[in-house]
C-alpha cells in the first residue's frame, strides 16, 4: 500500500433541480458526484464541497416518527407548508417527499398525488426528491403523473429496486428526471441494478445509488462498509458503481433507544441517534444525506462543513 492510492476512476456527476435558465423553476441546481478520491481527502476534486442534506417529509404523517410530529406540530397536516419550512426555517438543501398516503388508503389516487407534488413545487424553490409509497401496485401510475407534474424540474425519483424499476425508469426518461436505485446493503446487487437500469436506457448521469442504510445499532455498520466499498470500487475504475450515493436511515427515530428514552431526554436522544448514522454516511462518501428530524439539518450541516474545511475559516459550500 502506498502513501497515496492510485485511482483511475471518477464518480459521475448528476444534476438535480433546474433553474429558469435550465427550463425549471428551482432557485438552484446542484451537481453531485465528481469525486476523484476518498471522501474529504485532498485529491477529491471539488474542493471544500460538503454533502447535500435532504429533509424528509410525507403526505401521511400517521406513521411518521412521533418525535418529528411533536416538533413540527400542525405542519404535518399541510405538506406544502412543511416543505416551505424545510427550506425557510430548517435550512435543508433538498426536500424529500414521501407519498405514503396511498398505502394506507390502498388507492393510487394519481390525481391527488400530482396535486400534492404541484403544491410542494410551488411552496419551495429547492430541488425535490419524490418517493412513492413502496407499494408497486400503487406507485406505477403515481410515478407517471408526478413525473409529469415535475416535468423539466430535474427531480430525483425514488425508489427503483431490482424487482420494480421499470415504471419509475419510464417516468424519469419521459420527463427528464433522475432515479434512486436501491439495493439491500450489497455491493454486487447495487451493481446489478445499475446495469439493469442502463440496459433499459437510463443514462448513468441519471442514477443515484441508495445502498440502504440501517439505523445505528441495527446493522448500520454493514451499510457504512458497503458505502466505503462502492466508493473504493468506483475509484478503482468500476464504472457500474461510479454514481453518487444517497443515504437515509429511515428507522433512526423509531428505534427502542429513542422510544424508551426519558421524556426530557427523548429529543436529544433522537437527534443524536439520527446524527450518528447520517454523519458517518457522509464520512463514507454519501453525496446526499437524508434526515427526518428538522433540527437534524443544522446539526449535520455544521458537522459536514467542519469536515469539508481543510483549514479554519474556509467556508464549505453545498454541492454545485
Amino acid at each position, binding site marked *: *500500500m*502506498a*502513501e*497515496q*492510492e492510485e485511482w483511475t476512476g471518477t464518480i459521475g456527476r448528476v444534476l438535480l433541480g433546474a433553474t429558469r435558465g435550465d427550463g425549471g423553476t428551482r432557485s438552484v441546481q446542484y451537481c453531485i458526484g465528481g469525486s476523484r478520491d*476518498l471522501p*474529504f*481527502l*485532498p485529491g477529491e476534486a471539488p474542493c471544500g464541497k460538503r454533502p447535500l442534506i435532504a429533509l424528509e417529509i410525507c403526505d401521511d404523517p400517521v406513521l411518521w416518527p412521533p418525535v418529528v410530529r411533536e416538533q413540527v406540530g400542525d405542519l404535518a397536516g399541510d405538506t406544502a407548508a412543511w416543505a416551505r419550512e424545510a427550506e425557510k426555517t430548517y435550512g435543508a438543501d433538498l426536500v424529500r417527499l414521501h407519498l405514503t398516503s396511498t398505502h394506507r388508503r390502498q388507492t393510487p389516487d394519481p390525481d391527488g398525488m400530482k396535486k400534492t407534488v404541484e403544491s410542494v413545487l410551488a411552496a419551495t424553490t429547492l430541488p425535490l426528491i419524490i418517493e412513492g409509497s*413502496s*407499494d*408497486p401496485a400503487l406507485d406505477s401510475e403515481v410515478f407517471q403523473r408526478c413525473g409529469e407534474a415535475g416535468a423539466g424540474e430535474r427531480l430525483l425519483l425514488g425508489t427503483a*429496486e431490482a424487482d420494480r424499476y421499470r415504471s419509475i425508469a419510464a417516468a424519469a426518461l419521459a420527463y427528464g428526471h433522475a432515479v434512486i436505485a436501491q439495493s*439491500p*446493503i450489497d455491493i454486487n446487487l447495487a451493481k446489478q441494478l445499475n446495469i439493469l437500469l442502463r440496459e433499459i436506457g437510463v443514462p448513468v448521469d441519471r442514477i443515484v445509488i441508495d445502498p*440502504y442504510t*440501517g439505523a*445505528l*445499532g*441495527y*446493522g*448500520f*455498520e*454493514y451499510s*457504512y*462498509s458497503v458505502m*466505503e*466499498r462502492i466508493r*473504493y470500487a468506483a475509484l478503482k475504475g468500476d464504472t457500474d458503481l461510479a454514481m453518487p450515493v444517497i443515504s437515509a436511515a*429511515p*428507522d433512526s427515530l*423509531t428505534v*427502542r*433507544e429513542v422510544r424508551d*428514552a426519558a421524556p426530557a*431526554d427523548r429529543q*436529544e*436522544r433522537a*437527534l*443524536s*441517534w439520527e*446524527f*450518528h448514522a447520517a*454523519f*458517518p454516511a457522509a*464520512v*463514507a462518501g454519501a453525496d446526499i444525506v437524508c434526515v427526518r428530524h428538522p433540527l437534524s439539518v443544522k446539526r449535520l450541516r*455544521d*458537522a459536514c462543513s*467542519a*469536515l*469539508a*474545511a*481543510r*483549514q*479554519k475559516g474556509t467556508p464549505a459550500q453545498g454541492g454545485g
Partner: protein
Amino acid sequence: MALKALDIYKLLPKKNCKECGFPTCLTFAMKLASGKADAETCPYLDEATKQLLKGATRPPILRVKIGVGERSFAVGEEIVLFRHDKSFVHPPGILFLVSDRQTTDEIRRVATRVKDEVFPRVGELLRVNGIAIRNDSGSPEAFGKAVRVVEETAEFPEMLIAGSPASMEAALAECGNYRPLIHAATAENHGAMCSLAKRYGAPLAVRARGADALRNLAGTCAAAGVQDLVLDPFPETLGEFLITSTLIRRLALARSAPELGYPVYLDATAPGLEEAALSLGILKYAAVMVTTPRNPASLLPSLTLRQNIYTDPQKPIQMTPGIYRVGNPTRGDPLLLTVNFSLTYFTLLGYLESSRISCFLLLVDTEGFSVLTAVASGKLNENMIRDSLQRFGVEAETGHRTLVLPGYAAPLSGRVEEATGWKVLVGPRDAAEVPEFLEQSWKKAPGG
C-alpha cells in the same frame, strides 16, 4: 519494509539448535515474519541483525496499553485502512475531560460517572474508558490535587494533560505507576517529558501539527528510549484530522515510516462539534479520544457507533431461511415467525435463551431486511409466509397451526390468516417483550 520468511531465514545462523523454542531456524523465521516470535530468543544473533529483524517484524502499528487492572485498555495493532478488508481491532478509548480548575466535588462527580455508568447493549457493556485531567491552572499543586481526587474515587485509566514538565511530575507522583497517558511531548519540552515517561514506564503522547512534524518528534522520542508512544496530529479542523490520520495510517501500514507506527490521539472537545469529532475519530483511526462528560442521551449513540464499527464485518448479515430450534422444543411448543436479518435473529435469540424458552423460529427470506423494513417494502407478505410454511414443512415439526407474527407485521395478520389458513397471534414489537408475551398468550392459544 516488511521482510518475508525466506529473507529472514537468510539472516539466521542455520544451526537448527532449537534453543529459540522452535524445531528449525526456518520455523523461527516464519514465526518472526508473522510477528509471532521475538528476535531476542535466538542467542546466536549479533546485535545489528537483531535490531534489523525487530524493525522489520514489529507490527505496523505498535500496541500501547493505557492504565492497569481490569479497566485498562490496549490500542494499536491495527492492520487495515478499511474495516471491510478484515476488521478493526481495538475500539478507541474514550476519556471524560476534567480540569484542575474544577472543584473537588465536580471532579469527583465526573470520576464517579466514569466508574459506574454502563449501558448494556446486545450482550456487551458499553462504557467510557477513563478520565483525562487537564492542568488549566498551570499550578503543579492544583494538578496533583486534582489527580488525587480522581485516584481516591476509583481505579481506571487516566490521561494527564499538561505542557509543563513540573506539573506533569507532580501528577505522576500521584498516579505514575498506573500507566497514565502523558500528554504531551512537544517540540519545546520533549526532553523532560521523555525522561518522565521513562522513569514511570508510562505511555507518552507526542503532539505536533501534521504528519511530517509528528514523524520527526516521534522519532526523537523513540530514540530517547520511550517505547509506548501515541501520536497527536493537533488538527485545527475535523477535515484536517481526517486527512492527517488517514495519511498516518497509510504510511504506518506500508511500513514506510516506522516513526508513525503508533496509535493516534484526537481531542474531540471541539465546541458544538463534539459528537461529530467523536464519530469521525471512531470511523477514521483515532485510538484515544477525549470528550467533555457528555449527556448520556448523546453519549450512548457514540458508544453504539463504536460498537458497530468495531464489530467483525465477516459476521453474516443474512441467515439461511428455515426452521430454527431454540432450547429443546417439542410438538406443541410456540412457533414464531421472524426475518433472516442476522441482527434481528440474534437479538430475539438472546432474549429467548435468557428466559429459557423452548420454541421454533421460522426465519423467512426478507433478503436480510429487518421486520419494519420488510413490511414497508412488501418483502414480507402473506404469500411468501404461506410458501415458507409449506416449503419448510413447518406443521410436521410443530404439530399445530398457530403462528406468532412480529408486532411490526400486525397489518398483515388478517391477510396471513386468509392465505395460510393458520391461526395468527400478533406478538410485541420488541424482542425484549417476547418471552413475557409467550408466557401470557401462548398457553391460552389453541396450539399451546
